[in-house]
Every structure is written in structure tokens, then in C-alpha cells.
């Protein structure tokens, strides 16, 4: 008998999602409780799996329906997927807890259905991170995509058009992926990742044009999904117009998991040798990544709306990870993987902090930041940590991912990427500095106004402290602490998780 933990990671949120649709009449509290319970159990299973993977040092293979691969479908949880699973679990749980007030605000009715989609999205992401079969990955990709369309469209108004664009691009991406899988299937006859890797390493297929086209299609599809420059146009509108609870779930996770799929495809299905010696696009991709990093940051700089600014920063961060993965050395790969974890947490804490500020002020523009340090000190502190992490200030985790990425870029001699990373760091510093300065001191010209605005019910002092509700504050604080914790325990993360997943051939 096998250890059954891996399947619980996925099955629990799946069951929760199905049950959530059935328990509508029981009211939002039950729905919320069920969601949180399921997400925590799933996270527990992820943690248990990770511990086992780390202890045994071997990937866990779970055969669905007791069919051995390649005929059956297997879940494969190796060091990389274990790390990503835990990251997804943590982010989902935190944003789930956080969603109590904001989701209710956005969904007066049908909260249970909203939560069902929420849970389904998490199922899809967890499934993708543990998939060992390329077609299964496609189905899960579509599940999470469908769920995200629904959640994003809940933003209403302009969100519909943005979601439609996202839907079109997402479908193109997923279909390209599927077509690529088709090419690979034609040439190999298999769908299992390990089996594919085995077949693809044969001499005869190394030169094959079809395999190359299949790889190109898969990578293009994934790039569309993860909004790599210049395929990023759909992302900022779609994410920034969503409701707060939705944005907090989707923004940190969707693109990160896509990056994970890219890594999977590049290094598990194909091999580092094939990609960097046969395909040999590295320099082109690094240019694209550098462009993504710099242009993403510049565009973020031009935004007034805070959430839109954050979404452009996501575009830039995607460039970090893509560049790191294509640097073709251990440090770059480590940086890319570490940044998946770090960026998930960073984006989560920033979106949650901004969401809390919007929740309290009702203002999405940068003006809302004024005097936040005095009114919402904890929120502001987490925002500060998140900003420091994006800028790359030790000991937050953003510094260490940048460290590895820069190291990888230096070793690979990719000076353009080094320059892009440094410029992006400085740009991010400026972007966040503007906000934080306002947050710290309030606006010069209308200090009184911003203070008065914050005190709807009369308080004793001139400045009324009015933090977000506790269900928002706790996940915020945890996310902020996790940013520091991940930074401080970089050594452990790298030694026990990432080093093991470094592909052969580096």
C-alpha cells in the first residue's frame, strides 16, 4: 500500500469545492469554515509530503487508480513540486482567511459558489504542481483558468472586458500547449513526463523538427499563460479590476505556477542539454526577460492605481524568473525557483496590504496610502516588508532571490540581465518609496484632510487608528513574517529543496 498523503493535497479542496455548492442554504459562515478547513488540511498534507520528500531525498510517485505509468496517470512530487505545493497551500490558506470580509463585500449572494470556485482554482493549481502527465496538466490548467475567469469576472463593470481578453489569451495559451503536447505525442506516443523524458533523450529525436516545434508551442503557450513580455498585455487589466479577495488569490499564484510548469517542461520533460544546446534560444529569452523586467517596472512606475502598479510589478517579476531559468546554470535556476516561492509571498503580502488599505479607505489610487503608517500600522509594516522584498533589501527573501539571479547572470555573462535586475531594483525602490513616503508622513498639502478622512467615528486623538479587521490582519502579519522567515532560512530552502531539483547538465 502506498502512502496516500499526496492525493489528499488535491482531493480535499476538490471535495470542498463540490460540497460548497451544495451547502448554500447553511449560510456564509459554514462556507467560510469549510473552505478554511479544507485549505488547512490540504496545506497539512502538502507539508507532510514535503517533509517526506526531504527526509527520503526521493520523489514521491503516486499512481492514480493503481495503474502504473506510462499507461496510468501518476502524481510526482519531487523537491521542486513539494516546495511549490507548500507555497500554493500557504498563499491559498492565507488569502482564504483574508477573504472573509472582502469576499462577502464583493459577493452579497452566492458566497458559497464563489468559494467553490476559489477552492476549485486552488485544486487546479495544486494539481498542476503535482502532475506527472502532460495531458493531465492541460486539464488542470484549464480548470484553474476557468475558475480564474469566473473569479476575475466577479469584479463587475470593466472587469468583464478585461476577463474576456484574458480568456482569449488564456485559451490561446492553453491550446498552444495542447497542440505542442500533440506534436510530442505524435513523435513519442507517450504522455507521461518521465517516460517522455526517456524517449526524448534518444539520439534520433534530438534533431527532430517536430519535437522542436512541439517544444516551441508548449513554451509559447506557457509564456502566454504566465504573461511574459511581450505577451503580458492581458494581465494588468484582468488582475487589477478583480475583487480584492480574488486578486489576493490569483495574483500571487497563477503566474508562479505557470513558471513552475515552464521549469517542469524545460527540465523534466526536455533536458537542459536539449534546451540549451539544441534549441539554444537562451540569449533571445534573456533579452525578452530583461525587457520584461525593465519595461514592467517602468510601466508600474507610471501607474496611479496601486493594484495596477502591483500587476505590472508581477510582469517584471515574471521576467526575473524566466531569465533565471534560461541562464543555464545552477545559480540562475536556484534563483528562479527561489523566486517562485519568494514572489508568491511578496505578491500576496502586497496585494493583501493594498486590499486592506482599499477596504478601509475605499480608494484604489496611491492617495489612499497617505498617513497609513499611523492609521494602519500593521498593514503598513507588512507593506513595507513586501516593498523591501521587491526592492531586494536583506534580510527579506527578495534579496536572496536577487542574489542568486544576479550570481547566475554574472556566471552566465548575461550582463544585460544583470543591468535589468539592478535597474528594476532601483525602479522598484523609487516606486515604493513614493508610496511609503506618503504612507509615513501623509501628504504635505492636505495632511489635515487625510487625517480627517480616516476618522469616520469620532476618536480621541487627531489621528484615528483604524486597522483592518482581524481576519485580514492575521494573514497579513503571517505573510509579512513569512517574507522575513523565508529570507532568513534561505540556506535551508536552498539546501534541502532547491539543490535537489537542479537539473542534470548544469
Amino acid at each position, binding site marked *: 500500500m502506498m502512502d496516500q498523503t499526496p492525493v489528499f493535497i488535491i482531493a480535499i479542496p476538490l*471535495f470542498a469545492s463540490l460540497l460548497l455548492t451544495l451547502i448554500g442554504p447553511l449560510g456564509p459562515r459554514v462556507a467560510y469554515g469549510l473552505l478554511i478547513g479544507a485549505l488547512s488540511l490540504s496545506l497539512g498534507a502538502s507539508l507532510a509530503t514535503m517533509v517526506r520528500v526531504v527526509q527520503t531525498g526521493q520523489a514521491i510517485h503516486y499512481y492514480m487508480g493503481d495503474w502504473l505509468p506510462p499507461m496510468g*496517470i501518476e502524481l510526482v512530487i519531487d523537491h521542486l513540486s513539494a516546495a511549490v505545493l507548500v507555497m500554493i497551500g500557504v498563499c491559498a490558506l492565507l488569502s482564504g482567511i483574508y477573504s472573509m470580509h472582502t469576499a462577502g463585500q464583493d459577493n452579497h449572494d452566492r458566497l458559497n459558489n464563489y468559494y467553490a470556485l476559489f477552492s476549485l482554482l486552488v485544486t487546479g493549481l495544486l494539481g498542476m504542481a503535482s502532475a506527472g502527465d502532460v495531458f493531465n496538466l492541460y486539464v488542470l490548467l484549464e480548470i484553474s483558468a*476557468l475558475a480564474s*475567469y469566473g473569479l476575475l469576472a466577479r469584479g463587475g463593470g470593466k472587469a468583464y472586458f478585461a476577463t474576456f481578453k484574458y480568456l482569449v489569451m488564456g485559451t490561446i495559451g492553453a491550446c498552444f500547449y495542447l497542440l505542442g503536447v500533440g506534436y510530442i505525442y505524435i513523435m513519442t506516443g507517450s504522455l507521461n513526463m518521465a517516460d517522455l523524458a526517456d524517449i526524448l533523450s534518444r539520439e534520433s529525436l534530438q534533431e527532430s*523538427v517536430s519535437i522542436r516545434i512541439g517544444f516551441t508551442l508548449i513554451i509559447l503557450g506557457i509564456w502566454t499563460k504566465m504573461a511574459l513580455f511581450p505577451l503580458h498585455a492581458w494581465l494588468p487589466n484582468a488582475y487589477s479590476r478583480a475583487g480584492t479577495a480574488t486578486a489576493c488569490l490569483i495574483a500571487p499564484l497563477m503566474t508562479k505556477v505557470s513558471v513552475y510548469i515552464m521549469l517542469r517542461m524545460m527540465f523534466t520533460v526536455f533536458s537542459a542539454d536539449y534546451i540549451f544546446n539544441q534549441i539554444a534560444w537562451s540569449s533571445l529569452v534573456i533579452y525578452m526577460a530583461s525587457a520584461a523586467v525593465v519595461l514592467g517596472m517602468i510601466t508600474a512606475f507610471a501607474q496611479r492605481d496601486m493594484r495596477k502598479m502591483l500587476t505590472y510589478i508581477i510582469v517584471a517579476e515574471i521576467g526575473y524568473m524566466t531569465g533565471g531559468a534560461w541562464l543555464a546554470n545552477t545559480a540562475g535556476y536556484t534563483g528562479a525557483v527561489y523566486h517562485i516561492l519568494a514572489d508568491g509571498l511578496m505578491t500576496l503580502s502586497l496585494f493583501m496590504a493594498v486590499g486592506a488599505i482599499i477596504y478601509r479607505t475605499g480608494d484604489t489610487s496611491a492617495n489612499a496610502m497617505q498617513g497609513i503608517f499611523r492609521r494602519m500600522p500593521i498593514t503598513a509594516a507588512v507593506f513595507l516588508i513586501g516593498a523591501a522584498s521587491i526592492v531586494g533589501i536583506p534580510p527579506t527573501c527578495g534579496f536572496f532571490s536577487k542574489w542568486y539571479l544576479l550570481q547566475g547572470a554574472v556566471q552566465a555573462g548575461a550582463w544585460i540581465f544583470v543591468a535589468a535586475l539592478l535597474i528594476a531594483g532601483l525602479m522598484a525602490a523609487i516606486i515604493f518609496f513614493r508610496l511609503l513616503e506618503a504612507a509615513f508622513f501623509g501628504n504635505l498639502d492636505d495632511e489635515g484632510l487625510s487625517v480627517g478622512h480616516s476618522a469616520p467615528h469620532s476618536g480621541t486623538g487627531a489621528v484615528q487608528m483604524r486597522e483592518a479587521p482581524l481576519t485580514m490582519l492575521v494573514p497579513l502579519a503571517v505573510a509579512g513574517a513569512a517574507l522575513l522567515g523565508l529570507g532568513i532560512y534561505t540556506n535551508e530552502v536552498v539546501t534541502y529543496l532547491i539543490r535537489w531539483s537542479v537539473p542534470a547538465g548544469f
Partner: protein
Amino acid sequence: MKPFARIILFLCAVMMLTATVDLPDWADPGSPASTHLSPGFIEQGYHETATPNVVTAVLADYRSYDTLFESVVVFAASLVVMLVLRRTSTGTSRIKHFRPKREGRDTILRGAAQSIIPVMQIFALYVLFHGHYSPGGGFQGGVIFGASFILLSLCYSLKFAMQRFKEKMVLICCACGALLYAGIGAVCLAMGWNFLGYAGLAGLLGVTDVMARSHGILAVEAGVGITVMAVMVSLYYDLASGGDMEEGL
């Protein structure tokens, strides 16, 4: 932008078409796809699952994990469409103006529907349950079953169909079908086999492992059928009425 897109697409097309050189010929029995996994399915599938229809065996057993999520995909679609569209009547819908008025003048239609719908539903059940032996299965059966309700709604009215098959019930069916599928997986898990390992049902049903797989396939196909049927109806209800459930097409 448009000429640009055209040129890029054209170039891509030329590139990909010329690259077909490498691909195996049409219907080549020696192609990798036909020689790697598929012989395994064909030659072992019957012995392992007692299901002559290999497609069904692969769909609902070897790759049942995929199919589970496939039914979840449609379930998700119905949820999304409902969340996006469904709202209690708000009065001004611009779609309404284009709808023909139907006030009991379509006797022929209704008569035809009356006679065809029961047949359709029986046929749907046949397709579903005969999936082991002939082309068919949960999806096909579910779609046909769902179509019968759509036909009902088209020939009578949305309200009429909704009286027969209430919106709440549709949603419950959506979830229950998928739940049945996943639940069977969970039962197998509880019996000490892997998730969706239908052989775990053998002890419960008192049959051999192979027959248990066959029964398992049937059960999950039923689950898929229920979900797909309900989703078809749900999508129609929402899309046809623009979400207010006042009037269909």
C-alpha cells in the same frame, strides 16, 4: 497591428506546415503514437477492466484522474456562468427585445417534442450504460439527456422547463455527479487502494478485481453523465435568459 498579425500568422503557418515533413504519415500503423502505449491499452485493457470499449476503459479507468477533472471542468463552467450571469430580474435587458413572442401557437412543435423527448431520454440512458460495449458513455449520454431538457425549453418555454427541472436541482446535480465520481475514488481510497483504484470496490460488491473495475467504470460514467446533463441545462438556462431566468430563446 492587423497586417502585422497577418504576416506573423502567415509565417507561422508556413513554418509549421513545412515542418510536417517530420511527422509520420496519415494513418501510419508504425507511428510512435500507434506503437508505444496504444497496443498496451488494446491488448491488456479487456483483461484488466472487462470493458470491450477500449476508449471507455482508458477514459474512465486508466486515465480516470483526467476524466474526474474533465467533469469538474464542466462543473466549473456552470458555476462560472452562473456567477457571471445570474442575477435576479433587474428589468432592463437589451436582449429581450429580440425575442419572439410565443403564446401557445406552436402546437406541432410541442407535439413533436412530447413524442421525442422520452425517446431521447431513454436513448441517453442507453448511450450512457452501453458505453462499455459500444461508442458512448457518460459524456455522450449526459449531453443527449441535457439536450432533451433544452428541447423542452425551446418548444415550450424556459419557465416550463424550469418547473420540471428546477435551477437549484440543476446545480445540485452538477455537484452530485462530480461528487459521485470523486466519492468512488475516495471509497477506493478507504478500501486501501489508491484514489480511483476501482479494484477497491471488489470487496464491497463481492466481485473480482477485474469486474470491480468494470462496475467502477459504470459508476463514474453515471456520475459524469449526471454532471454533464445538469451542466448542459444550467448553461442553457443562464445563457438563454441572459441570467435573469425570465425568458429563454
